[in-house]
């Protein structure tokens, strides 16, 4: 399962966009597992940011040694990738008004989602700490609203602040980002009674549902149930997830 790197550019300080050849067609919200080489052992999960015939894009932030190694790879180097894995976002014909909400490095999978949405009215709220990325790409698929924590770009504040202004239009919310953001998005969706799907993260072993390490606590009749982020998710209905 070797794949050749076509592109690996730093699109913002510490954030890279990597493209590699890949044949299997994914759905939005799915992810791939990449062997980052060096002395890493486990493959790392990355959401699919874009896919065109035989070409996959992931956007990643350098956080530890795996993503650091990845950032040092060059065009025509080969990487070991498996996937696409997991259960992505469900797309419904019945919803015309879509609200897409992303934060930080949770934003990449929402690009592929936005591209695949066929609805008329798509509002995309993207939150960054400071420098933004992928804005032009998102603009092709909907109305983009940017928030930054330091106010350096777009609105100053959090995505949840921006969301509130357009929430009344929304028939469904799709979210991906850090846990506190997802928790806040879940709360808003419940308050406004709008269906909401979120993509969650957890550390993974196998990535395919065999090892039970990627537990996500979900509500169950008799209390709670640990579902698998890699197989049942990474996208869950917000109301299912116990934070």
């Amino acid at each position, binding site marked *: 399962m070797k794949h050749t790197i076509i592109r690996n550019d730093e699109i913002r300080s510490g954030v890279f966009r990597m493209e590699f050849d890949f044949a299997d067609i994914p759905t939005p919200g799915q992810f791939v597992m990449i062997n980052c080489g060096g002395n890493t*052992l*486990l493959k790392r999960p990355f959401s699919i940011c874009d896919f065109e015939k035989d070409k996959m894009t992931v956007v990643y932030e350098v956080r530890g040694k795996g993503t650091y190694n990845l950032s040092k790879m060059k065009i025509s180097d080969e990487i070991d990738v498996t996937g696409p894995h997991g259960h992505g976002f469900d797309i419904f014909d019945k919803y015309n008004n879509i609200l897409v909400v992303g934060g930080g490095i949770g934003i990449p999978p929402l690009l592929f989602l936005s591209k695949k949405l066929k609805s008329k009215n798509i509002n995309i709220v993207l939150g960054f700490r400071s420098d933004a990325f992928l804005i032009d790409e998102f603009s092709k698929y909907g109305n983009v609203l940017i928030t930054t924590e330091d106010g350096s770009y777009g609105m100053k504040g959090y995505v949840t602040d921006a969301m509130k202004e357009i929430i009344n239009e929304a028939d469904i919310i799709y979210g991906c980002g850090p846990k506190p953001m997802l928790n806040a998005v879940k709360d808003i969706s419940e308050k406004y009674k709008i269906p909401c799907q979120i993509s969650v993260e957890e550390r993974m072993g196998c990535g395919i549902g065999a090892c039970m*390490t990627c537990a996500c606590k979900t509500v169950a009749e008799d209390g709670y149930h640990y579902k698998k982020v890699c197989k049942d998710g990474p996208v869950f209905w917000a109301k299912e997830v116990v934070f």
Partner: protein
Amino acid sequence: MSLKVNIGNLEFKNPVFVASGTFGFGKEYSQYVDLNKLGAIMVKGLTLNPKEGNPPPRIYETPSGILNSVGLQNPGVDGFLRDELPFLKKFDTKVIVNIAGETIEEFVTMAQKLDIDGVHALELNVSCPNVKEGGMAFGVNPNSIYEITKRVKGVTNKIVIVKLTPNVADIKIYAKAAEDGGADAVSLINTITGMAVDINSRKPIFKNIFAGLSGPAVKPIALKYVYEAKKAVSIPVIGMGGISSAEDAIEFMIVGATAVAIGTYNFINPTCTMDILEDIKKYMNKNNVSDINQIINSINV
């Protein structure tokens, strides 16, 4: 060239197994691996009742290894029989069911429920470091090992394998206790207890503080335990712990393993068992070994 190995009255088509807890119930890996080609599948550890396991995080990477603290999340024996065994029965491989009781009675009850068609062997997990009740407490007590083995043997016609923990000073005593209890084989090693700390929060990474280390890092230690266990017993030994290549697998067989199980490395390369099998054949060819049994316990000291 013959790759067949025997444990008790059971014949396995080859000595390459997959280790409990790393291969689910076979379904997920069946997209990567032809399950018919595996010597055996050791399924995820079962408890009598369904178990939710430990809160996340449950896995943490260490140098050439992983710490896990799954805490035996599983659908319970009945769930297994209902939802998983039918799928496994479709394949021409041996199914070894790993069971973890909180009490001796639970082991017995599970063994009874599992004494049915499609199940070929039981692996008694007396060595799970990630659960509070039972688990390793049994595994570090030779009397418990003896007792559990004997009681389970009394209620089942299946081959009984006792899975030993490496968290003991002298493995020989524990292997012997299993043999004395009537075990058909012992398997080792389960994970080695370890821990990790988040230096920012100064909290242990895992809620249970400790977790189980596996993967290539543990191989030299596992190999030593298998060598010692084999010297202590005359029943077959199933070797595991950090195997990632045919070379590793052959090392384990040379020191005495009748079969080997691959655990963590399935995560790194989902087809590794198939590669290992092919490379074992190449090794046999190159070294004029016509029967894999010529390698087993052939160490030249």
